[in-house]
């Protein structure tokens, strides 16, 4: 096993393939969900991140062997982690490009950005030869993505507090809608008016953050009853 912890062509190959596989495992679930960053993106980023670490190791090896004379003459002004450290900045930027702000104050692409970041860092660890760490991190990441995420989604759907976007006939209808929601024993936390006048495509609309009374059962029921008001044109739940 010593062989894999030294810097040689075999360990270089093994680490690159390990990083690629780790990226593939992380990306598999995302590909399945048809997200922007899938299998290939994760594999490429993780593998290239791994190469940056190996590159630092290579320069250090060379300064000890082939370039030792110059290093002795000039002094070792060298930082083996410099390449790897830039991966963190670089992939941060790349991730920022995936974040979109959608309509009605919603944001998407955050999980994609963080996922890419995580796979890059896993690649760095693989490049250092931290084989056990990579395995543990992979297990934890898979647990978070595959197990915790659905649990979170389920919890969110059952939570009494949620946000709806409502479109209505006339700006004056908003008071009527708010009264109706209150009649249903729901508490209103925030009302954010998006449009006050009708334009070519949209009716006036508002974002309402509300909390259901205990006995109420589901978000859908609340939404359908809001839609029953004759002044309401559209109801939409906003899920972050």
């Amino acid at each position, binding site marked *: 096993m010593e062989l894999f912890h030294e*810097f040689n*062509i075999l360990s*270089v*190959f093994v680490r*690159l393939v390990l990083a*690629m596989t780790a990226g*593939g495992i992380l990306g*598999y679930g995302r*590909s*399945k*969900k*048809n997200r*922007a960053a*899938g*299998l*290939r993106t994760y594999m*490429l*980023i993780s*593998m*290239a991140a791994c*190469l940056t670490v*190996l*590159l*630092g190791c*290579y*320069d250090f*090896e*060379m300064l000890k062997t082939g*370039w030792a004379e*110059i290093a002795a*003459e*000039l002094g070792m002004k*060298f*930082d083996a982690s410099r*390449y790897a*450290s*830039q991966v963190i900045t*670089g*992939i941060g*930027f*790349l991730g920022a*490009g*995936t974040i*979109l702000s*959608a309509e009605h104050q919603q944001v998407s692409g955050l999980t*994609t950005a963080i996922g890419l970041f995580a796979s890059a860092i896993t690649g760095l660890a693989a490049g250092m030869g931290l084989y056990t760490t990579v395995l543990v991190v992979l297990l934890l990441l898979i647990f978070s993505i595959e197990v915790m995420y659905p649990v979170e989604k389920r919890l969110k759907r059952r939570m009494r507090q949620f946000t709806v976007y409502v479109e209505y006939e006339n700006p004056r209808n908003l008071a009527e809608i708010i009264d109706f929601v209150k009649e249903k024993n729901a508490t209103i936390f925030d009302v954010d008016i998006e449009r006050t006048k009708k334009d070519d495509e949209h009716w006036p609309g508002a974002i309402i953050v509300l909390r259901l009374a205990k006995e109420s059962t*589901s978000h*859908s029921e609340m*939404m*359908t009853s809001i*839609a*029953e008001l*004759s002044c*309401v*044109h*559209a*109801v*939409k*739940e906003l*899920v972050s």
Partner: protein
Amino acid sequence: MLHIFDTLRDVSTASIVFRLVLSWILGAMIGLERSYKNRPAGLRTHVLVALAATLASITGHYLYLGMKVTSDLTRIGAQVIAGMGFIGAGTIIKTKQNTIKGLTTAAGLWATGVVGLAIGSGFYEGGIIAAALILFIETGFSGLAARITVAPEISVRIVYEDKAVFDNLIRMTKDLDVTIVNLQITHLPDNKCAAILRLRGNSIINNEEFLDLFRDVDGILSAEYMDTKRG
């Protein structure tokens, strides 16, 4: 490391030419594959990225090893990694459906840049292995990525007359273990209503028979898929 490259580890005219040519070849191989698939960044882009990264790395090494200036031989090359992240972010496009395109292209360019750095530093083994792995990923996994994709969510538009339809509908979706994640109701003339339901669930939502289940619910006049591209 392999000894056949030993004479090309120092920065000399021969090794500079060798590095640039090698990085041209690797960049062209990765780029050709992309060109062949008709992607936005093809042969020319990849070759330029690989060459530029190689040159950055050679410059950093030459300062220290050739000119014998006290410097960090990795600093110039390292900034390429951050810089390529910037450029990559610029290739990402937002579509009208509020999804993004071009992320794999960005990742591929970024990886090609790192390969260029490795070649420029004289780390030929790493650069060649990584370039081969990039080609392997691009050719071997593009089909797989498309095959494993299942649309996890689907939009169905229904037209109905009676509000009571929702009680039946909520019961039906519960039985199938499909959840309504979004609901948009629009009033139509003639006392009719249209609702766009965003549904999440198992593979059942991708079958045409799934719509028949809707049509069987009392009070629903019609049901159709909203998404043009499915499963």
